[in-house]
């Protein structure tokens, strides 16, 4: 299996604080990779280096490289918009725009220059079907995205990310504000989506990592302690710190 994303010796600093220490990781194509670890371990920071979302943070500094299909996305000639077109993101809090469901979904394609009404209609239906929201909202596409329930809002955000046809979807604790049923729906959705996309998910919830992912990386204090197939990480961890964490001795 090809690595879709490779990071090499990735260091990240917020001012004087080092958040990532020499993280080297291969993320496999068409798999769900979960990143786990206690709060402040750097897993979210790592995720946000993969679509250069950390670019806007003042005084932040990155060393090392992130390769997307072999292309270093931090090379000076790379356009950040091109990177984000290929790497979509879903955030911790559902963050739909205060616009209609329809306008939310077509926001990305429109910013990238797609304006043809029929094409946009197709994009909306395809994306909402893929995120499993179509049947619930198809008669109400003019309704505000803010008026949906939390779980629906998060699936709207997933549809919005799918609308730009990315290759990778990053999810930053996407279920942390959702109820168990909505959480389950998102996990099922990840299984459906991984056939077409590569998914990287940061989660606080170890059961979720165990249920929904194929690969798991364990982060602690900015280091990637252990990385492997999810079943092995949870049944036969090689590192003592990983074992302590997954058995609930800390974190």
């Amino acid at each position, binding site marked *: 299996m090809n690595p879709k994303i490779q990071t090499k010796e990735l260091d990240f600093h917020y001012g004087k604080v080092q958040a990532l220490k020499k993280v080297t990781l291969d993320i496999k194509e068409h798999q769900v990779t979960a990143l786990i670890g206690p709060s402040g371990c750097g897993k979210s920071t790592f995720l946000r280096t993969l679509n250069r979302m950390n670019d806007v943070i003042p005084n932040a500094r990155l060393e090392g490289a992130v390769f997307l299909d072999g292309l270093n996305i931090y090379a000076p000639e790379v356009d950040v918009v091109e990177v984000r077109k290929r790497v979509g993101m879903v*955030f911790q809090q559902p963050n739909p725009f205060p616009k209609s469901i329809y306008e939310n979904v077509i926001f990305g394609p429109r910013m990238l220059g797609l304006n043809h009404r029929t094409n946009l209609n197709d994009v909306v239906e395809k994306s909402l079907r893929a995120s499993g929201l179509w049947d619930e909202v198809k008669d109400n596409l003019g309704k505000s995205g803010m008026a949906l329930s939390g779980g629906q809002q998060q699936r709207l955000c997933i549809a919005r990310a799918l609308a730009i046809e990315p290759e990778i979807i990053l999810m930053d604790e996407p279920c942390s504000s959702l109820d168990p049923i909505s959480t389950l729906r998102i996990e099922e959705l990840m299984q459906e989506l991984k056939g077409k996309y590569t998914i990287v998910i940061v989660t606080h919830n170890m059961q979720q990592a165990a249920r929904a992912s194929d690969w798991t990386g364990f982060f602690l204090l900015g280091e990637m302690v252990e990385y492997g197939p999810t079943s092995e990480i949870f049944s036969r961890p090689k590192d003592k710190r990983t074992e302590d964490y997954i058995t609930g001795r800390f974190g």
Partner: protein
Amino acid sequence: MIKLSPKLMQKIAWGFTWAAGIISVLILVLIIGYVLAKGLPVISLEFLLTSPEGGLSGEGGIFSCIVATLWLIAITMAILIPLGIGAAIYLAEYAPDSKFTRLIRYSVDLLAGVPSIVFGLFGFAVFVMALHLSYSILAGALTLVCLLLPFLVRSAEEAIRTVPQEQREAALSLGATRWQTIVHVIMPAALPGIITGIILCVGGAVAESACLYVTMGGSAAMPTSLLSGGRTLAVHVFYLAMETNALDKALATGAVLIILIFIINLSTRWLSQRLQAKMSGGT
């Protein structure tokens, strides 16, 4: 010290805040009510459509003053709004948090506290004299821009800053550039706050008198171009009250001022709602 029971204290606090609220509303109602009650009966179509003709009894109406005031507001806002919003976007979205930007912010705050007559003197020295604009609507408008810019920049910056960071991140993560994010996500969300700032600026412009007297002059003649002088409604009220015995006409002019501000507020809000719907797209 006498110790009051929490329950009694609560009653006293409630009574005090209630009285304070009623008194503030009452003062407002009294002033507006007085001006409208005394002023409205004097207003006639003739009063509105003839220009002041001078004299101890304040002959004539206020037509040229209305025209001068509307011109002044239009020119001031045409310069003020793009400058103010542009600077606010820069400060809130682009400027790095450095000593230099802190200095900008500090000086903006400082400027906002300078009395308006000082701006008037500045406008007189620079626009009227040095730039040879003489007493003119343009000189008055430029002076008002200097006076109101700090306030508009700060209130627009505040409105932009209150847009949640998650909204910016959502737009950026979808491949929007920073400018697209500003135009399509941040500005629609910040618009109500910015509009409030603009309305307060219009109110300030209409209310200002001293700093306009020294930059636009007090000519009651009908302005014919941006370089003509003019007498605004507020200056005319001052003139009527101090130089004539036509207090009734001063109050009538005041009533017109109040109504004008009211109309401008309503139409600005209406416009902003239309604009917001258009910028957000869809229903």
